[in-house]
């Protein structure tokens, strides 16, 4: 009896150590496949509080919190200094840390082209582009223009005195203004403000003739009839939805292409990136979580509210997208003489 017991014990010990070995042996592989945040996560928004990027980061936070997609708390912070460069410098410094995510736009790869900043977009581990913000050509509500052609013709006739307001300098708004100029031969005086919201108020007050704000930046003024949406710079009309003004919903705004513009489409991705050297497992983990976010009702609500186009790109598709968009933007910047890197 006794030896048997010993045998049994030995067998047990063996089994235990075998299991242990198994666990130990597979542990690294396991950790790689199953990366999980182990401390509070920080979402860093590359723009000031209250702007489009801040709301983007907070919408993701809300969707994750409400649906308990991760077990760690999330902190949203805004580091909008240097047109957002502050965020990328900060996240770059957190090398290998999968708990710090940079929320930005195309500024992830366009900023290093126009400003001498200490990062390149290739430093980061890109996670995903989650949504694309549209650009609309807006004029004052009582302006005499009704479409792209009549507006740009008037701008051309005004001989370089038409003012186009926009957010920041050498960023998306100014780039699009240059594209419109090239397309039509009209010349604008581009006046940079700190945010799209400020630009919108300037147009409402009649101090400038137009701007190319994202839908959410001018929603309030459009609703009140103070602004008129001439056309949207996208291939197709925006998603169907309820009426926003008395007569129009977002999908009633014609595309600029319909109206004969030579600009096929111009959109701004909202991007998420991780610090350099973050393990691939963490990148995959976040890509998975963000994918789940896009399926939540909170996210659908965010898209409708801000009139953006949901399109989720991750992994190699996202890298390819960045490369392509970077090249295209670089060409415009080069022609304008904005390049510093």
């Amino acid at each position, binding site marked *: 009896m006794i030896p048997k017991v010993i045998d049994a014990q030995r067998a047990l010990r063996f089994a235990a150590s075998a299991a242990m070995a198994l666990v130990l042996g597979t542990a690294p592989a396991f950790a790689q496949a199953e990366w999980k945040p182990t401390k509070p996560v920080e979402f860093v928004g590359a723009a000031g509080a209250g702007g489009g990027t801040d709301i983007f980061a907070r919408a993701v936070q809300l969707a994750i919190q409400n649906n308990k997609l991760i077990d760690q708390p999330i902190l949203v912070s805004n580091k909008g200094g240097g047109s957002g460069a502050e965020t990328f410098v900060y996240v770059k410094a957190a090398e290998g840390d999968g708990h710090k995510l940079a929320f930005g736009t195309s500024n992830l790869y366009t900023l290093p082209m126009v400003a001498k900043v200490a990062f390149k977009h290739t430093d980061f581990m890109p996670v995903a582009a989650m949504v694309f913000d549209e650009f609309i050509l807006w004029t004052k509500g009582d302006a005499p223009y009704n479409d792209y052609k009549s507006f740009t013709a008037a701008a051309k006739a005004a001989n370089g005195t038409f003012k186009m307001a926009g957010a920041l300098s050498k960023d998306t708004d100014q780039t699009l203004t240059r594209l419109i100029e090239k397309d039509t031969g009209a010349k604008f005086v581009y006046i940079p403000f700190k945010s799209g919201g400020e630009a919108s108020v300037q147009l409402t007050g009649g101090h400038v003739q137009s701007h190319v704000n994202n839908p*959410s930046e001018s929603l309030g003024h459009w609703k009140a009839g103070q602004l008129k949406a001439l056309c949207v710079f996208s291939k197709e009309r925006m998603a169907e939805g309820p009426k926003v003004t008395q007569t129009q919903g977002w999908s009633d705004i014609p595309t600029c292409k319909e109206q004969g513009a030579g600009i096929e489409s111009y959109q701004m991705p909202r991007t998420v990136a991780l610090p350099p050297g973050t393990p691939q497992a963490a990148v995959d983990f976040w890509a998975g979580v963000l994918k789940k976010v896009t399926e939540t009702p909170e996210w659908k609500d965010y898209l409708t509210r801000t009139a953006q186009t949901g399109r989720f790109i991750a992994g190699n598709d996202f890298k390819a997208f960045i490369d392509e968009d970077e090249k295209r933007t670089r060409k415009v910047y080069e022609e304008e003489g904005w390049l510093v890197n």
Partner: protein
Amino acid sequence: MANLDSLFHGFAVALTLQHVALMMIGVLLGILVGVLPGLGAPNGVTLLLPLTYTMDPVGAIILLTSMYWGALFGGSTTSILFNIPGEPSSVATTFDGHPMAKQGRAIQALSFAFLSAGFGAMVGVIVTTLLSGWVTSFALQFSSPEFFAVYFLAFASFVGLSGAQASKTIVSILLGFAFATVGMDTISGSLRLTFGFDELLRGISFLIVVIGLFGIGELLLTMEEGLKFEGVKAKVSLAGVMETLVRMPRYWVALVRGSLIGVWMGITPGGPTAASFMSYGLAKRFSRRREHFGTGEPEGVIAPETADHGAGTAAMLPMLALGIPGSATAAVMMGGLMIWGLNPGPMLFIERPDFVWGLIASMYIGNVVAVVLVLATVPLFASILRIPFAIIGPLIVVVCFIGAWTVGASKPDLWIALIFGVIGYVFKKLDYPIAPLVLALVLGDKAEDAFRQSMLMSQGSLNIFFSNPLVGTITTLAVILLTWPLWMSLIRRAHLLRITQPKVVE
């Protein structure tokens, strides 16, 4: 009087038990973050924002705005007690508030500050209630030239006041402008004066500079002067608060002038910081007791405080109706509005009257709650000064550095605070005025942006600053104020001539 109807409806919304409880919590939290320099209202509101996602929008905005009111009050406390402005807008309060505390009149200084702040806020809310429609259409007339003119006016009313030599004042202003240019330039999109340091990308934070110049600089000086802090002898009681309350009506001119400046700057929107400087400047220029300013004159506390709070409350209106945040805190709240599914803009008043008027009603109640709560804390805060300097001094250093850290959670900020502490000390030793530097740093980059935008609009012609009656009037006023000392001496000379001439004839 449709507005009054809506307001009473708003009171019905705001006066529920839950909302009043949120107000109290908000105010108390606000006082706490306001007292800690650096933490301040914008950071406090940002920290609280995620908690409000699941609340109803009315409750959420009441909580956040109450916190804002609390923080505005708390910010003045440290300005007066330790010469450390808890909020940028309470810098001007230090000029006379801190000397009062040093002389053992901390109770009076704090009570004056809180009471006048409450008065300013009330005027702000009343204007908001009565003129909401007119104010929004007025604010729409403001473009870059008008903004520049307003900043210019703020400068003009403050500069040239310091007792120091004119050359020293100019050096101080120019240094302030230079510090303000550090970082990304909005107009050209390029980096300036960062010398390759990534830490300087976002510019030099005004808060950190203030913590250094005032907090640490003051401490260095206090240590050198032999650790004397007369607050120790002050008697501390609630009766002192009452006495101040009784003396308050005597300063009605300063109160009215301060609130008008505050409301004007809140609407335009020049912001609370510019408002408080401008109000202090004008009070010093036109007060009968102007020689006493800077040595502990109650009017020097009342003027900036009324304007600060008047502007803070009035700034809510452009935020709601136009979507322009009048202050950093308002910007964070605007983000909140979008998350709660509300769109700031003219339609908000029509679509969600319960929200807008509930908020406005809560501003009345919230400010009364805030004044009562902070007045009750006066004896408590004033007795902090009784703690021996050997204990409180090191504590202030710690609080200063914690404050500098919370601004951006970055280590280089601590060094910047220390460097500015030394600059503040050297400035005081050499009799250079600090206030012009601070004003230039706060308004410098806004004024620069507005000026360059105007130049783009006018293609380089300065006539744009006289191109319509509004901007023309403000610019003219500013020029008159700037050259005021010149006018005064001219008038005096003419006066002398008139007196002497008859004598010659005789």
